[in-house]
């Protein structure tokens, strides 16, 4: 370890055994817990006689417990890190304590080489073993020591001595062989300590889970934290060095297992349920049966205890009435600073307003203060940048809100004060802080006139916004006539209906002759005649469509003769053209029609065997229909 080249002349080994506070590492997050309590550590210090490079600072410290029980000896150590002048120590008077032993002096010296670099350390410790004589608060006065002709002194150290209740104390010393009985009911406790039990919604409190023990704990299992329902919680980094604390008149070693910052999110009484864990304690017993002289006959037992913390009730107070409109739950103490845009900006250019809220309180839960920009300002999404630190008692820091905007039209505009209201729990009052009103001049960017641009902006691409709604304006003008009473089904209504219907009936009666004539002449007769003629000539029509000339005229003649025969009930064999003329005359059919009828018969007889065109066939057909209709009409009249 040491080398002659580095000037080490001789080595002195010194074995010192000292009682030190136990070193332990608690890591709740990883659930790996190492606990070693009250272990006597044997440290080997290599003491060197060689010269030590002088240190700039000399530290002279005192190490003594802050709390001790009456009747229990404890040690006070004064340590100096540079070789003192021998016999220069001046111990304090230790008033209220009996000195059982001391001062015992132990010195240590070490040299370390790290990457070829040599560091030396030296320590000299003066140890006193003291016994408190009475309960109360005492102070161990300053001790002083001379190093290199200069005198250094320690700080006075307060010590509290309490008279412990001695309920399980007797048990400890007795020769009971049951390890369970060595760990009393109150020897290991789990407590959830809260910094506040009554606070406003949004305020923060510190909750720490502390293990109190009077036994050697060497393991913790099944550790479970309660659900902090109704709270926003954040784990805090904490100092995990153990300390001693008096609880219920007894002194415990305390180990902080976890520490949280809690912020209630609802009002009323919120109960934090129990946390639980299983602690394993070590009990060392003297084995009476197989006392082994070599190993001291000691047996190590493990005793497990399931621990539960008592539930804690937190009373969350309601905010007092009369909150201003701009209040939205911020609680604490805040400052507001703002960075306004330039006094003059060009239209259609972008700028921004910056609001910074700084201070301590529920910064994480505050919302951006509302700002009202003039209508022609196009506002964009607010940007939030926060710089929040969570410390042991509170969250503090700052939040910066950036409100970007584009001024669309030129003119002079006033930006209303931006208000931020918070509740100050210490004064119990609402406080509103506001920015100064700000006037901004928007200069025309020179592309168009203000109004034209504003219109263009409104009209282009974007849907016109409905800014607000209100009821439509009243009815103006002259007083309208009184609302008329119901007209339908009144006598007047019936009168009008009856009169209209009566007029119609009278007109109908007066014109009934004309109506009937109209109906006979125009419609019925004509239609009937046509129908008869067409029925007769249906076969002829079929032959005409086929182009069978001979058959067509044959059928035409059969229809024409047959028509008269059927109509006047005369056999075809008795019919002649003269007879037809005679019969038609008798029935008031005009001579012209009769003549036309006979002429068609003659023409058909001739055409039956002579070549004619289809057109003539068609003419003959329609003429026959026409004349038959005329005869029908004439006869029916």
């Amino acid at each position, binding site marked *: 370890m040491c080398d002659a080249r580095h000037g080490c002349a001789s080595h002195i080994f010194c074995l010192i055994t000292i009682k030190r506070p136990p070193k332990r590492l608690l890591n709740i997050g990883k659930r790996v817990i190492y606990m070693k309590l009250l272990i006597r550590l044997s440290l080997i210090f290599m003491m060197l006689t060689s010269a030590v490079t002088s240190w700039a600072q000399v530290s002279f410290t005192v190490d003594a417990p802050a709390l001790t029980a009456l009747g229990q000896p404890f040690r006070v150590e004064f340590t100096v890190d540079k070789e003192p002048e021998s016999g220069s120590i001046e111990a304090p008077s230790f008033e209220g304590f009996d000195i059982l032993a001391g001062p015992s002096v132990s010195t240590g010296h070490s040299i370390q080489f790290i990457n070829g670099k040599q560091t030396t350390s030296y320590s000299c410790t003066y140890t006193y073993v003291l016994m408190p004589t009475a309960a109360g608060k005492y102070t161990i006065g300053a001790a002083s020591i001379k190093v290199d002709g200069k005198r250094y002194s320690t700080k006075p150290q307060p010590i509290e001595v309490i008279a412990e209740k001695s309920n399980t104390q007797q048990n400890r010393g007795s020769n009971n062989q049951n390890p369970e009985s060595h760990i009393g009911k109150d020897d290991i406790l789990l407590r959830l300590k809260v910094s506040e039990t009554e606070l406003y919604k949004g305020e923060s409190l510190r909750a720490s889970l502390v293990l109190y023990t009077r036994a050697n704990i060497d393991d913790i299992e099944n550790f479970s934290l309660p659900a902090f329902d109704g709270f926003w919680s954040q784990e805090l980094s904490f100092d995990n060095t153990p300390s001693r604390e008096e609880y219920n008149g007894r002194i415990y070693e305390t180990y902080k297992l976890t520490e949280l910052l809690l912020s209630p999110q609802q009002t009323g009484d919120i109960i934090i349920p129990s946390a639980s864990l299983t602690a394993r304690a070590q009990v060392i017993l003297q084995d009476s049966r197989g006392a082994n002289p070599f190993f001291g006959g000691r047996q190590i037992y493990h005793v497990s205890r399931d621990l539960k913390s008592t539930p804690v009730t937190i009373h969350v107070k309601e905010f007092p009435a009369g909150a201003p409109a701009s209040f939205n739950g911020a609680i604490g103490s805040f400052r507001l600073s703002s960075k306004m845009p330039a006094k003059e900006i060009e239209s259609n250019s972008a700028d921004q307003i910056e609001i910074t809220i700084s201070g301590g309180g529920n910064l994480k839960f505050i919302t951006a203060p509302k700002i009202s920009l003039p209508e022609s300002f196009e506002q964009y999404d607010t940007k939030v940048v926060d710089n929040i630190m969570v410390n042991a008692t509170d969250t503090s820091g700052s939040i910066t809100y950036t409100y970007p905007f584009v001024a669309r039209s030129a003119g002079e505009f006033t930006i209303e004060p931006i208000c931020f209201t918070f509740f100050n729990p210490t004064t119990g009052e609402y406080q509103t802080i506001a920015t100064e009103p700000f006037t901004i001049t928007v200069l025309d960017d020179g592309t168009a006139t203000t109004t034209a641009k504003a219109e263009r902006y409104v009209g282009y691409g974007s849907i016109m916004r409905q800014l607000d709604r209100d*009821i439509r304006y009243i009815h103006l003008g002259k007083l309208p006539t009184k609302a008329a009473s119901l007209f*339908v089904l009144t006598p007047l209504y019936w009168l009008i*209906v009856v009169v209209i219907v009566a007029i119609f009936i009278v007109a109908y009666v007066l014109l009934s002759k004309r*109506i009937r004539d109209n109906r006979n002449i125009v419609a019925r007769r004509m239609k009937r005649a046509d129908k008869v003629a067409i029925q007769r000539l249906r076969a002829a029509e079929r032959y005409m469509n086929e182009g069978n000339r001979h058959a067509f005229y044959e059928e035409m003649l059969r229809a024409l003769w047959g028509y008269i025969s059927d109509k006047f009930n005369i056999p075809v064999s008795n019919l002649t053209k003269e007879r037809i003329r005679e019969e038609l005359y008798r029935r008031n059919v005009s001579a012209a029609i009769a003549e036309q009828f006979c002429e068609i018969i003659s023409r058909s007889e001739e055409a039956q065997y002579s070549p004619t065109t289809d057109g003539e066939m068609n003419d003959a057909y329609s003429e026959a229909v026409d004349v038959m209709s005329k005869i029908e009409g004439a006869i029916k009249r």
Partner: protein
Amino acid sequence: MRRVYNYIIGIVVGILAVAMPTNIQAADATTTAKVHWEEGIAAYENRNYKEAVEAFESIIALDEASAEVYYNLANAYFKLGQHKENAARPFSAGELGKAVLNYHRAIKLNPAMADARYNLELAVDHTNDTENIPQSFIATLWQGLRSMMTSNGWTITSIVMLAMALILVMFYLLSANILLRKVGFFVAIVLIVSFIVTSALAMSSRRALLNDDRAVVICNDTTPVHASPDSASKIIRQPSQGVTVRISRVHGDWTEISFADGEMGWIRNSNIEAV
């Protein structure tokens, strides 16, 4: 249509006025109403809504009310409630309920009054009224058609339809030209159908007017609606002022009402006013 009808009524009233001396009083009332009307409009223009309300109310008291009077009164009530000294509590004296009530009355007299419908919708937005039960398409169509004119408007239309239909029937009967007869026949059929439809609309409108069971909640704050006509019974709802309900029956101091969503309950008579 209205003007035609008013003209007819005018003639009838004129004839009656000659015959009956009591109508001289009516003429007097009209003159007073005209003065109130001018007063009301002037007060409204000067944002003196309290006076405007009084002026329009006195026209109604004189029995000279028209849809426009109710509409203006409702507007005055609405504005009076909106412009309270205590801006945090608008409509604190039941103005919203009165406004809704008078918009309903205006629309009842003139279903075609678009302004009143618009303002009613806006006023109802301030209440906690529930959504209507959706109606069938036919019912909505029928009501939409009916609200295009007043009952009297539909009556006049139906009479004109009848007269025109009969003229066209006559035309059909007398014309010798086939085309004209055909046109006359079909138009006459259309007109007769129109006559039936418009008459039905007039009757339906009349029935809606005569059998109107609607009422509006009138109170300063929310009113409890109980499950039975007994103040110790369960409170089932708390309608705000301006909520429109339907009256189903009255029992002593209590009225059974049904809400737009079909829920029923009992309310004190003094808390509602029938449309």
